């Protein structure tokens, strides 16, 4: 009965940014075998559409519209009586009135998922795209609106593109003039075009096609008008496409941020939501974040937080705030508007999509010391810690970051600890997802550094040290980097270092030494530096071949890597064998350059290391020549 929708390699690249009805929809089984009364009614009318001349056809089509076309029984009856095929055949004629009559019906019934799949199966989309060339404006508008309905699934969107639909839809946006002298007819055509483009833009290839067809400057022009019914699909399309970097660039350079900010103050919540969503996506880029601030967009965003009823709007707004908060100047502005306080109130009783963004925003705001205190004073720490028990991956990553940010303040740390927060973080190291593991490990660094009785606390987590040492076996770079950083902190406690040594931390660290990743190098070197301070670990590092790779780190361009490496080498150079290896690897020359550094720690470590190497060389000379 239904043909199987083809899912094949060609659908790769048709990736959509939202999940929807890509599989062939299944029809609900109706009880009983009797055909519905709607069926007979439609069949009667279908008789005239199939067998009548254009006059009779039109009468039948107009009568059909009196039936309740939004009712599923009616919609399915049109399909089951074969009337749908006839309607589509009518589209292929040159009779404008019949095409119009048919499209008026198709537009209504294509709201039904089964019908739109059927329309696509019957080749209706190709014909509708052709109709976009018609000189009759009303007909074009109807075709575009129907395409907007049908193109709600992947295959349909692909069909539209493959038959030149995108280019024609973009042409509908062209008008004589936008602005005060806008004609009513122009805006209707543009509105229908924008609706269709919005539906089509959910496919990645279509986003690119719209761009190629010159759609962006046209969308930018319409963004400046004040008709809400056009603004909504235009902004909807822009925010959908903003997942593409090329669009984000264009949105920025064509001055659209200003218009998006302006429309945040619209009366229409749907428009506000789409503007906020667009800003959310675009604010990945620093220049955009600056533009939002320059056009005074931060305050309206903050104000919109008060509308907590509309969850979709709230999710978009909190998302925009989150990304804007990546820039420090924006955080300072948010402080003026007391945004942080409001965000804390949104930590409870909110749907996940809102929470993820709220916590993300707070995590960014935590980078400013003042806000860490504010969050505590508003009672924000407890709900945050509670969220450590969530299961949503994205949420956990953000929560970890926020908790870690707060933990930089000893006063906050006390609260976190009292709520068992560190234990919860530690158990997240067991989470199968590497992003969660890494963010948890990062958060543990300030926790371990700032907690009272930190060493004891860490020891109290049964199997905790073994767990974290074993994470050094991970294949994920971010996990490795964060775990090294955490281990560097943990190793400051002698007892814990001893336990980690028993669990084999030295060879595991050494194994990682051959890397070109500067982030990893830095934290690895720090970890090694601290792990040297126990027993025969220095010798063990030499035996497990960590020294030579470390020497190469000095050639990197990153000063933070230099400092960490120098510290590690200094510690390692207490063992003579290591000195020999360092000497062989040209460490002295490299360290000499760093003795003159303005970084005190680097200076000292470099000097100390060179001194150790020199002392050994002298002693060797003496031994040789008596």
């Amino acid at each position, binding site marked *: 009965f239904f043909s199987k929708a083809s899912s094949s390699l060609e659908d790769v690249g048709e990736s959509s940014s939202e999940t929807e009805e890509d599989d062939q929809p299944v029809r609900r089984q109706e009880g009983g075998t009797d055909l519905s*009364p709607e069926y*007979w*009614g439609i069949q*009667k*009318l279908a*008789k*005239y559409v*199939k*067998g*009548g*001349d*254009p*006059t*009779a056809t*039109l*009468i*039948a*089509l*107009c*009568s059909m*519209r*009196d*039936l309740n076309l939004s009712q599923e029984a009616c919609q399915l009856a049109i399909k089951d009586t074969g009337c749908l095929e006839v309607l589509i055949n009518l589209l292929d004629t*040159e009779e*404008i*009135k019949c095409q*119009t*009559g048919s499209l008026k019906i198709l537009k209504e019934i294509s709201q039904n998922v089964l019908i739109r799949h059927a329309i696509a199966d019957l080749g209706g989309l190709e014909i509708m795209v052709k109709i976009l060339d018609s000189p*009759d404006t009303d007909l074009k508008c109807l075709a575009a609106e129907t395409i907007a309905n049908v193109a709600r699934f992947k295959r349909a969107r692909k069909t539209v593109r493959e038959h030149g639909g995108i280019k024609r839809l973009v042409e509908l946006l062209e008008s004589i003039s936008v602005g005060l002298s806008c004609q009513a007819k122009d805006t209707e055509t543009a509105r229908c075009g924008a609706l269709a483009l919005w539906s089509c833009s959910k496919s990645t290839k279509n986003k690119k096609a719209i761009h190629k067809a010159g759609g962006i400057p046209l969308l930018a022009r319409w963004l400046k008008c004040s008709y809400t019914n056009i603004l909504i699909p235009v902004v909807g399309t822009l925010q959908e496409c903003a997942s593409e970097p090329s669009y984000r660039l264009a949105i920025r350079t064509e001055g659209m941020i200003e218009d998006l900010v302006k429309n945040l103050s619209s009366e229409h919540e749907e428009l506000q939501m789409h503007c906020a969503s667009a800003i959310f996506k675009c604010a990945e880029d620093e220049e955009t974040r600056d533009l939002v601030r320059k056009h005074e967009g931060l305050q309206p965003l903050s104000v919109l937080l008060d509308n907590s009823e509309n969850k979709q709007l709230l999710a978009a707004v909190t998302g925009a705030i989150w990304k804007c908060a990546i820039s420090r100047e924006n955080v300072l502005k948010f402080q003026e508007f007391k945004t942080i306080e409001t965000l804390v109130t949104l930590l409870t009783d909110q749907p996940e999509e809102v929470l993820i963004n709220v916590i993300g925003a707070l995590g960014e705001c935590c980078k400013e010391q003042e806000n860490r205190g504010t969050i505590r004073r508003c009672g924000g720490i407890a709900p945050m810690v509670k969220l450590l028990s969530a299961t949503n991956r994205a949420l956990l990553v953000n929560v970890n970051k926020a908790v870690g940010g707060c933990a930089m303040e000893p006063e906050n740390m006390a609260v976190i600890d009292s709520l068992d927060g560190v234990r919860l973080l530690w158990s997240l190291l067991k989470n199968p997802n590497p992003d969660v593991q890494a963010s948890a490990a990062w958060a543990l660094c300030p926790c371990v550094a700032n907690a009272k009785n930190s060493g004891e606390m860490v020891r109290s987590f049964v199997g905790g040290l073994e767990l974290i040492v074993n994470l050094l076996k991970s294949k994920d770079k971010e996990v490795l980097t964060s775990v090294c950083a955490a281990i560097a902190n943990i190793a400051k406690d002698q007892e814990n270092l001893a336990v980690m040594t028993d669990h084999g931390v030295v060879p595991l660290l050494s194994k990682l030494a051959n890397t070109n990743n500067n982030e990893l190098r830095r934290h690895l070197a720090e970890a090694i530096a601290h792990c040297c301070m126990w027993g025969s670990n220095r010798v063990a590092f030499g035996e497990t071949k960590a020294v030579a790779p470390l020497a190469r780190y000095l050639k990197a361009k990153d000063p933070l890597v230099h400092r960490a490496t120098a510290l590690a080498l200094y510690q390692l150079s207490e063992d003579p064998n290591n000195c020999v290896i360092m000497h062989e690897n040209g460490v002295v020359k490299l360290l000499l350059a760093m003795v003159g550094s303005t970084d005190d720690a680097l200076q000292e470590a470099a000097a100390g290391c060179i001194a150790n190497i020199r002392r050994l060389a002298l002693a060797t000379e003496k031994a040789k020549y008596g």
Partner: protein
Amino acid sequence: AAMSRKGVKLLVDSLTRSAKHFNKSEVECLVNLFDTLVARSSSQFAGAGFDRTVFRDTLHSAFGMTDDVVLDRVFSTFDRSNDGCITVVEWVEGLAVLLRGTLEEKMKYCFAVYDLNGDGYISREEMFQMLKNSLLIQPADEEPDEGVKDLVDLVLKKMASTYLLVPFLLQDYDHDGKLSFADFEKAVREEKLLLEAFGPCLPDIK
């Protein structure tokens, strides 16, 4: 009888005003066309106008209108003086509606065309007349006229206010259904496609 130059100018001015939708040069063209058609027609009206036959031929070749019943009725709407002769005034003013009429003007025109006996109502019988050839494919098991009768019912249900409101499929209806101009106008305002509900009587935009 040929008109003087001044007479022609006065005629053109007056027609431009009364027909409203044409400019002066367009009116001049139509007047010239009128003269050509009069020359073609019989001398029955002594040059004052042309007859039904010429009119039907002209509309047929100019606009592709073929339906005899409709063409007859169009002639009658043009021929306001009802004397079987189209004068130049009737010609220009009639074409103004046909080619450029507002929706109001077109509605009045179409209604007049469809109101076959001119009594101010489109009756069931008149509808049957106009639609009887619209069913190209008749189901074999049905009486040939059943389909057309049902079609007429559909129209009445949709447009006539005097029709009893019945649920869609019940066969119970009032045989006196007919369409007043008010009914027609209301229906067309709601759905423009119904303007030529009983058959094409306006030229195609092609």
